């Protein structure tokens, strides 16, 4: 049993069993763990962005610009591994889920606080393991983030630590999911019925199931690749009878649902922000829940759309293509819900709102381009081209990334108890958004024209589009710097924030900013007529 001296302090300032930094890295307080994740993920994101900028610089002109082909291979691999496994997969759940989930359901903490801390430690260990692959051994991994067999056990580069690191990161993700599931099942406060849960909580619930049920599959698959490297077991090795396409099946059985791990909580955050800034009840609360669970479930059934050109049977191709089109429906339902919520709302235009609306815009383009990839005939044409790169950056970056920034600006006053400079925040958003469009939109075009992905070089005819794209990456980087500098400064020096600056209706806005150590003085009770989005 822990005893904590509170001295009227909030979770940021209280003094627990340990002092200083130790009081953070050994804290089991869900809010502190959320912040630990925020700082670690921000660090990794920045690293990933730097690698992305380096690639874009390389692609400024045909031929070698700043790096060799092999270096480029390593850079896109490490960029992909960092961005996927360390940034967008943990992303919103680990940061805002940890910070807000217990408060939103009226609980004092997650169900297993110590396990929660363990998740973070595993995350950090995974990060260091992957980084070890870069520093030691014979060159950093060059397989792409997908670790495809048989190259992943034939390449001479230092794969083992990277694979092991990805495994540990997966374990961390599983434990977070497990924790959230139990928390949502067991720790809702009195009157917080399932149909009164905020939508962010619902999306975390769906996400947690995917984390739990999909991650083990990739875990064991990565273990098999490691065993293949060490012992030559033969399971994925065509020379010994293994089938490399089976590797792809197993990899995507995880990695397709994983894109829903990335996007569902993002949709959840948007579903919080849109009603708050429209001052209106969310349109189609139940439809959003249903579509969330439908996405989580159908998302399991469509993995093969990553393998249309790999040599699957025709039957499987038809099936996967059909289901891919079906899984697009629930996402579209959500877009309609958000738009309908805006309709006739009294809209309060603030930074989180800008982010949310640009999210909808970018997400829609990303989603529609996904249908191009999900259709058998067109996919053959654009598979493994810059079109794919544009598509998934629109979704994961324009989707999850924008939603992350939206959530950051939305909950910032709650988390730090201070308000950021709104003018700078809006400027940052605008620059970032313009940079984003300039960076990725040309890639759609380049891909259509046939520029392949994962090459450090290209034909002269692609030069124009690449110059625009690289230029966009600089604009985006400028926007990123503005945003980060503004937030960091405001976290320390911003004007004190009220408890409920946006007039939100969910529980986290009823507690002081920043929240007290135990969240609530006494357990809240939700009345029969209260709901998460009850606006008059």
């Amino acid at each position, binding site marked *: 049993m822990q005893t904590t001296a509170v001295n009227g302090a909030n979770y940021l300032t209280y003094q627990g069993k340990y002092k200083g930094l130790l009081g953070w890295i050994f804290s089991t307080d869900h809010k502190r763990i959320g912040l630990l994740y925020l700082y670690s993920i921000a660090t990794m994101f920045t690293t990933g962005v730097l690698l992305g900028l380096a690639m874009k610089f390389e692609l400024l002109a045909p031929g070698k610009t700043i790096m060799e082909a092999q270096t480029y291979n390593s850079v896109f691999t490490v960029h992909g591994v960092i961005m996927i496994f360390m940034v967008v997969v943990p992303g919103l759940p680990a940061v805002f889920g940890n910070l807000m989930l217990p408060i939103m359901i009226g609980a004092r903490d997650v169900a297993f606080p110590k396990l929660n801390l363990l998740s973070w430690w595993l995350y950090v260990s995974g990060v260091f393991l992957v980084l070890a692959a870069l520093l030691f051994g014979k060159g950093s991994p060059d397989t792409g983030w997908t670790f495809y067999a048989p190259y992943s056990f034939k390449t001479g580069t230092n794969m083992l630590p990277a694979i092991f690191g990805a495994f540990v990161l997966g374990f961390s993700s599983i434990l977070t999911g497990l924790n959230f599931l139990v928390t949502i099942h067991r720790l809702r406060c009195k009157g917080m019925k399932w149909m009164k849960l905020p939508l962010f909580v619902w999306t975390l619930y769906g996400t947690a199931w995917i984390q739990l049920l999909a991650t083990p599959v990739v875990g064991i698959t990565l273990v098999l690749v490691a065993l293949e490297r060490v012992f030559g077991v033969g399971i994925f090795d065509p020379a010994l009878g293994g089938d490399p396409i089976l590797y792809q099946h197993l990899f995507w059985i995880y990695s397709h649902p994983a894109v829903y791990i990335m996007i569902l909580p993002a949709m959840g955050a948007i579903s919080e922000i849109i009603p708050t800034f429209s001052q209106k009840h969310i349109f189609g609360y139940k439809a959003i829940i249903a579509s969330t669970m439908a996405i989580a479930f159908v998302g399991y059934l469509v993995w093969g759309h990553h393998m249309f050109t790999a040599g699957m049977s025709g039957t*499987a191709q038809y099936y996967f293509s059909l289901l891919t089109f079906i899984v697009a429906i629930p996402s579209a339902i959500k877009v309609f819900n958000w738009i309908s919520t805006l309709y006739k709302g009294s809209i309060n235009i603030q930074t989180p709102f800008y982010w949310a609306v640009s999210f909808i815009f970018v997400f829609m383009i990303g989603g529609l381009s996904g249908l191009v990839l999900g259709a058998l005939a067109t996919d053959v044409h654009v598979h493994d081209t810059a079109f794919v790169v544009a598509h998934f950056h629109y979704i994961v970056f324009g989707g999850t990334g924008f939603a992350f920034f939206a959530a950051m600006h939305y909950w910032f006053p709650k988390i730090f108890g201070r308000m950021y400079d709104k003018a700078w925040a809006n400027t940052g958003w605008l620059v970032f958004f313009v940079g984003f469009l300039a960076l990725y939109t040309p890639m759609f075009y380049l891909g259509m024209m046939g520029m392949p992905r994962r090459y450090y070089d290209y034909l002269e005819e692609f030069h124009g589009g690449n110059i625009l794209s690289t230029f966009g990456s600089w604009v985006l980087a400028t926007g990123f710097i503005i945003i980060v500098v503004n937030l960091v400064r405001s976290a320390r020096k911003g004007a004190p924030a009220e408890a409920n600056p946006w007039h939100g209706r969910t529980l986290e806005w009823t507690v002081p900013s920043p929240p007290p150590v135990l969240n609530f003085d006494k357990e809240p009770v939700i009345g029969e007529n209260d709901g998460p989005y009850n606006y008059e």
Partner: protein
Amino acid sequence: MSGEKHHIVPYRLYFVVLIALLALTFASVWITSIELRDYTVAAALLFAIVKSYLVLNYFMHLKYDKPYIKIMVGFVFAIFLVMIVITFLDYLYR
């Protein structure tokens, strides 16, 4: 939550379940030793499924658990089945 009393399963029931499990084990060894061709695997798996049903329900107390836990377990097995079936959409029709 010490208030919630658990259902105490008598020792004897566990023993009976064990006997059933052992009987099924020997039955499956026996049935696979006769020549059934393609049905050998099916038979062996059938016995395995009955056995796992007993383990889940009695040893793992699912029988006495709240419905939502049962639903979750069913759901997980369903997901696994779906995974196999879909993968075979590829291999069966190559």
